[in-house]
């Protein structure tokens, strides 16, 4: 097997992992702290992409588009939190699933009404186009940008959660919810803040991938389930777990797609290998989750109890 190819795929896997992490970080926090299953997280991923695309096309600048998208996503997230989500914290998981699925339908149709069904493409500024070569290895600059931004966000979150007072509260909340109110913390404000941070990270993920795949209706709905798999594998409420699991899933998915058919071709016909491989690589992620749940029901890095 070609080493350069493996390396290229590793970078692709890393990029997918980073993206999954941006989506999962907010999901795992809202889940861990507020005990909220939020499918509508997918909608912020989509909205981030669409708002960024609209901003980019209007102002003819990707960077302005990004700035606008982050601000508007945050405002929208705050509004949704106040209007809907805040009423769901005390409900059981089923109610949350249904209500946030309703939000997805509303967001998808809303986007269709505003921007039409076609989706929006985001033109990249020349700085971010082009490739960098490391010897044999040629990598599009923009993919490196995604990876860099994602790592930066991961580092930022690490700092926020582990080195600040707010982070202390977040960690406390993730392992023991009652403790927060007994500490006299304004739980409402903390919840809103966590929700908005999570939504903005998801939006950031969406707008980062959009220049590659375009912003399209329901783009988050496909990846949100994978993001849930990530937080289950990583351990609900754990940023570190989400990061590790996102990278694992990113690599498994990418390498599965890239090399599984070659692997299968050793012991079945090329024809069957070509059709079986995509299905099997899609299943791999779920098999991994099932195995981990059986082996460690709390995931790889559950937040420490008490």
């Amino acid at each position, binding site marked *: 097997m*070609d080493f*350069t*190819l493996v390396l*290229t*795929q590793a970078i*692709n896997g890393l*990029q*997918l992992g980073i993206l999954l992490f941006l989506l999962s970080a907010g999901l795992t926090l809202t889940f861990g702290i507020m005990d909220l299953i939020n499918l509508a997280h997918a909608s912020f991923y989509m909205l981030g992409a669409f708002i960024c695309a609209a901003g980019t*096309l209007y102002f003819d600048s990707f960077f302005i588009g990004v700035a606008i998208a982050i601000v508007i996503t945050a405002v929208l997230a705050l509004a949704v939190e106040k209007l809907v989500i805040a009423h769901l914290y005390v409900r059981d998981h089923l109610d949350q699933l249904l209500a946030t699925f309703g939000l997805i339908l509303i967001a998808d149709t809303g986007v*269709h009404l505003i921007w039409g*069904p*076609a*989706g929006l*493409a*985001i*033109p*990249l500024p020349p700085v971010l*186009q*082009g*490739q960098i070569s490391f010897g044999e290895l*040629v990598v*599009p600059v*923009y*993919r490196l940008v995604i990876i860099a931004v994602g790592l930066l966000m991961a580092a930022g979150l690490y700092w926020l959660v582990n080195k600040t007072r707010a982070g202390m509260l977040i960690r406390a909340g993730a392992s023991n919810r009652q403790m927060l109110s007994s500490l006299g913390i304004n739980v409402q404000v903390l919840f809103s803040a966590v929700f908005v941070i999570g939504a903005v990270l998801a939006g950031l993920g969406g707008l980062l*991938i959009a*220049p*590659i*795949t*375009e912003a*399209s*209706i*329901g*783009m988050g*709905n*496909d990846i949100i389930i994978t993001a849930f798999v990530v937080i289950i594998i990583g351990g609900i409420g754990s940023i570190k777990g989400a990061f590790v699991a996102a990278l694992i899933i990113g690599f498994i998915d*990418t390498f599965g*797609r*890239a090399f599984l*058919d070659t692997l299968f071709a050793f012991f079945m016909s090329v024809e069957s290998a*070509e*059709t079986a491989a*995509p299905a099997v690589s*899609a299943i791999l992620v779920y098999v991994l989750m099932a195995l981990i749940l059986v082996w460690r029901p709390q995931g790889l890095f559950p937040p420490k109890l008490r």
Partner: protein
Amino acid sequence: MNKNFLIGAALAGLCSTPLAAHAADIKIGFVTTLTTGGAVIGNDMRDAVNLAVEQLDSTMGGKSFEVLFEDDGFKPETGKQVTDKLIKEDNVDIVAGYIWSNVLMASYKSVTRADKIIISANAGPSAIAGKLCNENFFSTSWQNNQTPMAMGELLNARGVKSLYMMAPNYAAGKDMVAGIERTFKGEFVGKDLTKWGADAQLDFSAELAKAKASGADGLAVFYPGKAGGAFIKQYQQAGLNDVLPLYSVFTIDSISLPKLQEGKMDGILGSETSMFWGPDLDVPANKAFVASFKEKYGRYPSHYAAQSFDAINLIASAADMLDGDFSDTDKVRDALKKADFDSIRGDFTYGNNHMPIQNFYARKVVADADGNWTTSITKTVLESHQDVFAAECKL
């Protein structure tokens, strides 16, 4: 009490309104995708149908007609449900439309079982052209394999010796791959079938990396709808346009080109594709169609639009022959089989399986006189071509 009464009244209202509106003599059902990303195609088809209705002044064979649009939601099951509804509730005379092979496969029996005619304005799966062919099925498009077979010939003509192929993992995708394999004489160095459907794969980085590493002379792809745009961007971003020339079928069309132009994807200028039709095809009916479409909607029609436009005109030709009487399906079938109308592709005939026997052309992506990107026909690749599955059809 009051509340219940209101709900009852509201339900009754919902029941009756749509029914009261149907007063035309001839009803045509048109199933396409109006929601999800696939709606890009569906809207183009609907626009073309509406243009045809307008040009016919809602009359065919001396009778008034109307077209009832239904949304398949990009799902075979939904497509089947709305087809059933058109047949059983709206009592349409003919059903047309169908972008996706899988939606068509799920739905066509609902129509043929009721002994009505179904006209595909796009999908052309191999099964329905061959083994499962049905006398009540007609197509105004092509059999899935034909366009890629033309592509295979084009690749031979361009001297491509080794080829990498990518297509989505569904019926049409596999048909496309099979089509190229039938005619391409060089070597296949790799092939990827990617995930398709509601959660289709849109990040092709892994596959493009493989394609590049394969050292092929050319890359042949099939990515209809929104996946096409995504694919082209990544192709360009990966800097492949200098290394690995792109040959595409149903990927670059009038729907994706404006967006690609907006996104400054100039790497695709000059890339080639194969098709039974092109906006600049020199046929009077086509010139008129493209001009009126551009005038009404301010953009080039896609082949989806052209096929839908043809579908309505095909039906109109049958209505003219039968004085608008669609009650006898045998007569309707015979009339349709003549294909006696001014098609946007020029004259063509129907084979035994009711698939058109027609020419296929090579098209190149160029900028037109106004600077808008479009495609231009460069050569005829296949002449009066009949699909290979016609031999398997027992009609």
